[in-house]
Structure formats: structure tokens, C-alpha cells
């Protein structure tokens, strides 16, 4: 395919330019980055680089040098070796011949034919050497110009080994375009080191400028490590990015008096295990409290599904669990229908499975709401990321004893166990006031845990 070379736009306001001189001449071999010609625009003289490799062809009747030409004016072509540029085709084409006369449909035998097809001397009808798809791919990766190679395949086809052999005999420096080398000198970039770090790429001015802009990270390797992204990290990254990019996340925080919740938990702990079933943790209690609250505020137990909003009756509670491998969110199903003790049994088993790496995919999906607790790490408040497709996530802070004003009139203070809640919700699904009312009810249930007992 012939590539058209036109008067480039070298600035936002440039509308025309003068072609000062050709640097490459008609018939020259060019590579990406080679300077083709010089243009004078209203600001300065500019060298114009090639973006493609091939043979540079200027129409014989071209008289553009020294002329003021509009941006986009056709100046020349870059064609593949052996290809006729359009101006020659136009001259040689007669009405009776078509350009692709050699292409024809080869009849396909019903039975696989023995592989003694005639050898093609490694050249295709378009004059290019034959090359395997893999060799072509590797040539691109290693920056090898395969058009000049001799193939060692049975039919003269260029195969992978030919490309690799060529890459070894070709120094990295040869891959640097003249403009890039000059830019590197100006910017103080070690272009040969850069070329060694970017195998298989032709080094153009852009790469040098990028390296100059951030010299340290691009050129040092001793003080950093590079590892492939583990699969779990990829999944977490995709889900976090999807949530951050699609939800309209708003975080509400409120401080809660958890003194009575601490009392409940302390009594449960004192009572000990019953029938070898574990003592409910704060997370288990909170899961139950939140599930009870969601029954009164179902719009936070909802998700988008196509063009509808699906509101779940059951509360499947996700619990964010930190493991050596990364974040997991196992799901306890039908929390609204379970006792706190049942929840404690299930969550203990699930967390153990997650930490052991034996948890199945079904236990990690289908949640309708998520609780994430950073209290153990002495975090007060934070802005959790919504676990899509859910509507909201409740962040739980540490419980800490504080001096609190309990009667301003009487100027009375007391020591109370205080805790911050951070609710992040998706404003696309629910408005601020209903979300605040939800959080308010969670607060009330924590402050007076017996309320949900009779709810």
C-alpha cells in the first residue's frame, strides 16, 4: 500500500508551509524516523520525519520545492519494494488490465492434498519475500527489517529463526533514528542505554523525550523490582477501577457510641463457646444489625441490572477479609434469616477457608452489601470503595474509649466507647438523605442493641 506524504500541520495555527528542500530523493530507501524534507512554516524550519518504511517516491513532474503549499497537499509517496507508486500506475494502466489480475481462487480439494505444492522461491506475487505470521510478529518485536532477509523455510519462507539470527547481528544503536540521536544529545539522554532497554523498537524522538521527562524511572533498574501482576491483583485492580470509574460514590461518616455493643460482646465472650460454636465477633454483630437495618432501607440493598434496578429481599453480606494473597470478600447468605450465632459459625468457617485458600467461587459472589472493618489497624474513618454491583459498603472504624459530653446543660462528661462508621454509597442508586437515614438507624441499633432484638 502506498503511503501518501503530505504537507504536515506543524502547529495549531499552521495552514500552509513552504517545502524548502528534499532530504530524501526519489527511489531512496527510508525507515521510520528518517528525515524526508524540510518545511518552513511561520515559526521556523522543520525537519519532517517518515512514519513508515519503504521506498520514497517523488512524482517526476513534482515542482513543489520553494513553493508555499496548503497543509495536506500531496507531495510524495512511500511504497513497498517493487510496488508502483500511484502516479506510475495511472500512467501505465490500460483499460483492459486490472491491477490484481494475478489473484484468483484456487479450487480446494475435498481430500487433503499431499504437501508437494510447488515451491514459490520464497517470493509472493507482490514481490515481497514470504514470511510466516510468527516470524513477522517476532520481527516487529525485535525491530528487524525482514524485507531484506533470506528465508530458510522449505519454500524460502522467512521463519522465526531467520529473524532471530538477524536481530543478533544488528546492534541496538542502528535502531536509533537520526532525529532521536540529536534529541538525545540535546536532552542529555544516553540513547544507546535507552535502545538496549527497549528491545525491538526503533527509537524515535518521542521515546527520547519521554525518557528525558522522567529520567529516573525510565533508566534505572537497580533500585526497583518488576514482577508480573498476580492474577488476584489483576482481578482486584479491575474491580476497584470499575467501581471507581462507574459509581457516583459519596461517603458519609458518623461517630457512634458503641458502649452497649461492647457490653453485649463482653457478655457473649464471658458466656464462652456454646456447643463448640464460636463467640460472635463485632463483625458478626454488625452484620446482623446492618441486615436488620437493610430490611427497613431496601434501596441500599439494590443494584443496577441492565435497564432496571434490582432490589434484593435477602441480605447476602460480604465481609472484607485481608489475606497474605490480598483482599477477599466472602459472602454470608440470608443474614436476615439467621441468628447471630449461626452467622458466627459461618463467618468463622468462611474466613478460615479464605485464609487457607480453599474457598470456592460461589462463596465469593452474590453479595448484596459489604462490611469492611479497619478497626484492628487503629483506623477511625475512611472512604471504602463500593463492591460492584452492590449499592453501598459500610466501613467500620476502631472502638476507642473517649471522654464524651453526655449532658451539656449539667456540664457532665463520661468515658464512653466510641466508634466511627463510614458509609460509601452509590448516588446513582440512592440519594443522600435516605442513605443518611440508613446510617442513622445503624447508629441507633449500635447504641441500643436491644432495639433490633424487638425490631
Amino acid at each position, binding site marked *: 500500500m502506498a503511503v501518501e506524504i503530505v504537507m504536515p500541520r506543524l502547529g495549531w495555527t499552521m495552514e500552509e508551509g513552504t517545502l524548502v528542500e528534499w532530504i530524501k530523493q526519489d527511489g531512496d530507501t527510508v525507515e521510520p524516523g528518517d528525515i524526508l524534507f524540510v518545511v518552513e512554516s511561520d515559526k521556523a524550519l522543520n525537519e519532517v520525519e517518515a512514519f513508515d518504511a519503504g521506498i520514497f517516491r517523488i512524482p517526476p513532474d513534482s515542482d513543489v520545492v520553494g513553493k508555499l503549499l496548503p497543509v495536506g497537499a500531496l507531495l510524495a509517496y512511500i511504497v513497498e519494494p517493487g510496488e508502483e507508486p500511484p502516479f506510475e500506475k495511472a500512467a501505465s494502466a490500460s483499460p483492459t488490465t486490472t491491477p490484481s489480475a494475478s489473484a484468483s481462487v484456487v479450487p480446494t480439494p*475435498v*481430500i*487433503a492434498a499431499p*504437501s508437494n505444492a510447488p515451491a514459490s522461491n520464497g517470493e509472493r506475487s507482490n514481490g515481497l519475500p514470504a514470511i*510466516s*505470521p*510468527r*516470524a*513477522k*510478529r517476532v520481527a516487529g518485536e525485535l525491530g528487524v527489517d525482514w524485507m531484506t532477509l533470506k528465508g530458510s*523455510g*522449505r*519454500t524460502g*519462507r522467512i*521463519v*522465526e529463526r531467520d529473524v532471530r539470527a538477524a536481530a543478533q547481528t544488528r546492534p541496538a544503536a542502528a535502531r536509533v533514528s537520526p532525529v532521536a540521536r540529536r534529541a538525545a544529545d540535546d536532552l542529555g539522554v544516553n540513547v544507546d542505554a535507552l535502545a538496549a532497554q527497549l528491545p525491538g523498537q526503533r527509537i524515535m524522538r518521542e521515546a527520547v523525550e519521554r525518557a528525558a521527562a522522567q529520567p529516573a524511572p525510565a533508566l534505572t533498574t537497580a533500585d526497583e523490582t518488576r514482577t508480573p501482576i498476580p492474577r488476584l491483583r489483576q482481578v482486584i485492580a479491575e474491580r476497584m477501577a470499575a467501581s471507581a470509574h462507574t459509581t457516583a460514590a459519596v461517603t458519609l461518616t458518623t461517630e457512634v457510641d458503641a458502649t452497649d455493643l461492647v457490653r453485649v460482646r463482653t457478655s457473649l465472650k464471658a458466656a464462652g463457646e456454646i456447643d463448640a460454636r464460636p463467640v460472635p465477633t463485632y463483625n458478626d454483630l454488625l452484620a446482623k444489625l446492618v441486615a436488620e437495618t437493610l430490611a427497613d432501607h431496601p434501596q441500599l440493598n439494590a443494584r443496577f441490572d441492565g435497564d432496571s434496578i434490582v432490589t434484593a429481599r435477602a441480605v447476602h453480606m460480604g465481609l472484607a477479609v485481608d489475606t497474605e494473597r490480598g483482599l477477599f470478600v466472602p459472602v454470608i447468605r440470608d443474614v436476615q434469616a439467621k441468628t447471630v450465632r449461626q452467622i458466627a459459625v459461618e463467618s468463622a468457617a468462611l474466613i478460615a477457608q479464605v485464609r487457607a485458600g480453599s474457598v470456592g467461587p460461589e462463596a465469593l459472589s452474590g453479595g448484596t452489601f459489604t462490611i469492611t472493618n479497619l478497626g484492628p489497624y487503629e483506623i477511625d474513618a475512611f472512604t471504602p470503595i463500593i463492591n460492584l454491583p452492590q449499592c453501598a459498603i459500610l466501613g467500620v472504624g476502631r472502638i476507642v474509649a473517649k471522654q464524651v459530653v453526655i449532658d451539656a446543660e449539667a456540664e457532665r462528661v463520661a468515658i464512653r466507647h466510641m466508634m466511627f462508621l463510614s458509609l460509601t454509597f452509590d448516588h446513582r442508586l440512592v440519594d443522600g438523605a435516605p442513605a443518611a437515614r440508613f446510617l442513622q438507624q445503624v447508629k441507633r441499633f449500635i447504641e441500643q442493641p436491644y432495639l433490633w432484638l424487638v425490631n
Partner: protein
Amino acid sequence: MRELTFTAAAREALAEEMARDPSIFVVGEGVGARGGNFNTTTGLYELYGPMRLRDTPIVERGFIGMCTGAAMTGTRPVVDFMFVDFILDAMGELINQVAKIQYMSSGRLKMPLVLRGSIGISGASATHHSGSYFPMFVNIPGFRVVVPTNAYDAKGLFKTALRGDDPVIFLEHKALLNAKAQVPEEEYFIPFGQAAIVREGTQATAVAVGSMVRRTLEACEALAGEGISIEVIDPRTLAPLDIATILQSVHKTGRLLIVDETFAPCGIGAEIAAQVAAHGFDDLDAPIQRLNGVYTPTPYSPPLEAAVVPNTTQIVQAIRDLLAE
């Protein structure tokens, strides 16, 4: 570890599952007191009697129809075809009912029907007893098509077949039935759709099906002496087909040969080649090649029979040609 023949391993799978699940029963010609033409049910009649090892007249379409109905009611029939060539008499029932009933009933009816039989060219069985036919079944949505190549796989795959709810075509190559392999005492299952890399290599990938696995391994062993390193893949199940493992291997080696005793046109090799060309084009350093049996009815004469099946010498040559491409 103990060694079992292919037939004994598959029979052990059947015996274990029959002991565990009373809804499994076997239907076929000679499966009762005779113990099956290929000893597929030896000893089971004594344990379970004529209700669960049911001899039939020679009327394939009739007993397939009967078993189709039985499977729809929730039992788990195993039909033993002796030679799978005779499954062809029941094609209407198989394709229009067995393969489609789960779809037609929106999944309310299951079709846990296992259809087993011997395949392949071996021992001058002549053309009515030498077919393999698996491309025909792979072409129909609904069937699982299993082609084990050793005793270990035969047991694990047969167990999976007997536990599933889909119709399974379980094909046992005659040339492999007496081949022994290590089979553990403990219970195990091999999932469908998981190819086995039976030999690792770097210069080309050979996908071999059925009895061709063993011959291809022999060919690769011969070539290894010259420093030629070939990866051999046994798909084990053709539907579902584990194309991912094949693509990974081709990504490594750049060259692919498919060795298959059955006919080339519209065969499993054509399917594999098309999928690799579509999804692994930029990994290919040479045209994909197939080596198939000769496109002809199978001759009875032993020398002619041997001439229509790819042999080790031909596989060696095919690999050499592929590497020279």
C-alpha cells in the same frame, strides 16, 4: 502401584459406580452372563443380575429409544455397543432426542446416558467394525465425546461420564484395550475438557487422538535421539475440546501437526487447525499440517489395513516435513 488394562480400569469405574448408584444399569448385546464382547462387564452379572445387566436383541434403535426414555425418568443407562459402528442404526434417536431433550425441556429433563463402544482400525476387523465416527458427534451440540488413550484416563473419564447429567459418547480404541497402565486404588475423576500434555517439547506441537497418541510418542522418542524436541498433546475429550492448552503449546513451539486415524475432511484435525489459525495465527511459523488415515473404507486384508493407518515412520516423516517448512 498396580497396573490394569484399559478394559479392566473402565470396568472398575463401572463397578464402583454401579455399587454406589442403583439407578445405573447396562444394556447391550452380550453384556449379561457373557460379560460383554470386550469383557466390559465381566463379573458384574453375577453381582447385579439381569435387571441391571440387560441383554438385548440386535435392534439398536429400539434399545436406544428405551434407554432414552429411562434416562428421562431419572435412571442412568449405560449402552454398550460392542462396536460403535452400530450406533449408526440409532442416529435418529440420538441426534433428535438424546442430544436435544435437555434443550427441549428447558433443562427440566436430564439425559445421563452413557454410550460406549469400541472404535478404530485394528486386528482385521473389516470396514463395518473399524469406524471411529467421533467428528460426527462433535458436530452435534449436546454430546460429550470422550476418547481415552490409556487405562488411567479411561477410569477417571468413565467415572466422570457416569456422574454427569449429559449424554456421553465414550469411545474405546480396540488397539488400546489390553494396554496396561498404573491405576491407583484410590478413587479419582478426570474432568472433561482438560487435555494432557503427554510429552513436553519446544520445536513443534503434535496433537494426537486415540491410538495415535502412542504412535506419536514412539515417533518423538525416535526423533529425540537427533535432538528434536516435540510436544505431544492428548486432548482426551473432543467435546469439550481444550483448545487453550493447544494454543499455549503452539505459542511456545510455532508449529502444529494433528495426527488422527480418522478421515481428514471435516475431522477433528480440521477443527483444531481452524481454531489455531483463528486464535494463534501470529504464533504460527509454518502451515498447520494434518496426518490422517486414508480416506477410504477400511480394508479387511491385514497388509492393506496397515497401509491406511498412519504409522510411526509416517509420523516421523510428517514431523520432519513440518520442521523443514
